[in-house]
């Protein structure tokens, strides 16, 4: 039977945008969406799509991408389809905006996963580059009662088992669990593939399925937040850098050593 894979992908503000374009509206406690800089699929979620595609390269599998949010840039969110995923489910509702509260997001996603039924494996990114929570997948595993393996750099499935290589501070470990399971992946998995022209054409023809809160059979009373954002600000950083110069670059290197000696650092 074909392996049924779900990939969770979030649309985020491009984390590689110029730092100068990053702005916080402190009165509204919000990050200002930069005009003229298109959003992206969270980088680690592209790794998650790649992990799913690698499985699909080796065995029969279907890949369903699920995303929750208030508004989507369709051309951006279709990227996983053009890479080779089969189906895109967008959970779109004005009520789904509180993504600093992982409990909230995980509840919505869990409901969609239940409604779609029968996933063998859910693959998520390690964290979303906006709030850097690294919580939603772990929470989802708890809500759905799935085995959970975090921070994988390689994911294999065979004989009803997932075997993964996970990054540790000093190397990696090989971990296995029975399906159904949830794994999170990280950039160590490798560069996600580029969409092919054929993939892009196929994706243009595909229509995402859009579900609102009521399609999920939820109401706002179920979505009580668990954390409150009290304030949001840009930290004071920066200091006066003392530039070390010399007659030439090599001499500047020597001057730097002398300076550090003067400061008793070496």
């Amino acid at each position, binding site marked *: 039977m074909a392996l049924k894979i779900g990939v969770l992908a979030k649309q985020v503000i491009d*984390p590689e945008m110029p*730092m100068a374009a990053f702005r916080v509206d402190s009165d509204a406690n919000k*990050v200002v969406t930069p005009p003229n800089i298109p959003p992206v699929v969270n980088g680690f979620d592209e790794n998650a799509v790649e992990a799913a595609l690698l499985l699909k390269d080796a065995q029969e599998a279907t890949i369903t991408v699920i995303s929750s949010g208030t508004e989507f840039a369709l051309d951006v969110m279709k990227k996983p389809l053009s890479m080779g995923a089969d189906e895109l489910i967008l959970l779109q509702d004005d009520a789904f905006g509180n993504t*600093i509260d*992982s*409990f909230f997001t995980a509840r919505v996603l869990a409901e969609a996963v239940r409604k779609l039924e029968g996933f063998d494996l859910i693959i998520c990114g390690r964290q979303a*580059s*906006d*709030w*850097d929570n*690294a919580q939603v997948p*772990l*929470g989802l*595993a*708890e809500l759905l009662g799935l*085995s*959970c393996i*975090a921070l994988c750099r390689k994911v294999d499935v065979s004989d009803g088992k997932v*075997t993964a290589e996970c990054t*540790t*501070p*000093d*190397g*990696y*470990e090989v*971990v*296995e*669990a*029975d399906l159904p399971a949830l794994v999170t992946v990280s*950039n160590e998995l490798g*560069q996600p593939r580029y969409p092919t022209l054929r993939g892009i054409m196929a994706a243009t023809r595909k229509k995402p399925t859009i579900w609102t809160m009521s399609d999920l059979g939820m109401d706002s009373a179920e979505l009580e*937040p*668990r*954390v409150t*954002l*009290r*304030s*949001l*600000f*840009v*930290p004071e*950083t*920066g*200091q006066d*850098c*003392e*530039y070390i110069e010399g007659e*030439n*670059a*090599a001499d*500047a*290197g*020597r001057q*730097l*050593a*002398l300076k*550090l*000696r003067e400061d008793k*650092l*070496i």
Partner: protein
Amino acid sequence: MAEATGVLVLGELAGGELASVSQELLAAGRKLADDLGEELTIALLGASVEGASQQAISYGADRVYAVTHPLLEEYQVDLNLAALESLCQETNPNVLLIARTESGRELAPRLAFRLGVGLAQDCLEVSVDPAAKRLLANRPVYGGNAIAVISCDLTPQIAAVRPKVYEPLEPDPSRQGQVVSFPVELESSQARTRIVERVEETSTGIKLEDARVVVSGGRGLGGPEPFAHLEELAKVMGGAVGASRAAVDSGWVPVAYQVGLTGKTITPEIYIMVAISGASQHMAGCSGAKVIVAINKDSEANIFREARYGVVGDWEQIIPAFTAAVRELVQS
């Protein structure tokens, strides 16, 4: 149910001793407990935890829960989770602090969800809101570009605290505290994952996290070979070598070298950054460095806004001369 009370720290053991992250967390927890007028307790999980109990008291704990079961001998997340869940249900803490370590980063969110409460992730500072007597947590978001102040609406209020942001208290071996034994019921079938193999990839030298001097290289080095120069410099200075994610992603050095938001947090006395632009996600892992030295050929690079000393130029010329000069100074 009685009102939640007390600050509970999840302790970690390293070779039977209280891990340094737990000493740090006890310092953070002591202040919270005093500000709340509540007790500071620590949970130590293992097959037996005797050695570390008195240590925990000397570092500030009023009470130790020795949470024991033979299955807790080797760390396994599901079993630790089950043990902690019963401890929390039984003791009903007001605040729970967990270090965001290799294990804590997975344990904290899963425990929060299991208990149905919120979590402040990756905190740089935890304090008590004097008016509401609730926990306030400062945490970096958007790759360190902003700081969010968060509070948790339910109890326990859980915070995962970044390692190395708190200094342990001076240990006081004469401090008195209570050790409460808390045996738990566990079944081996509760463990849903199995570790098949563990592989170490780092060199045996000084650990990046503990080094007094760290020399890191970035994309601007252009390949793996230049890292040999950095290794040499690190050796002369008695330090370790790190890297940016760009250098790691290029496959020039092992993943374990990565410093930053999704890499290691380091707090060296000197951090020498070679051909690294200074993206916020990199700085998130080294903002605790005492002195940052930047070597970069682009005078506009962000790193010159963060560094104490900077040399604008090509590393190929600067590093060999710098290394030679340091060697001379160290030997004289």
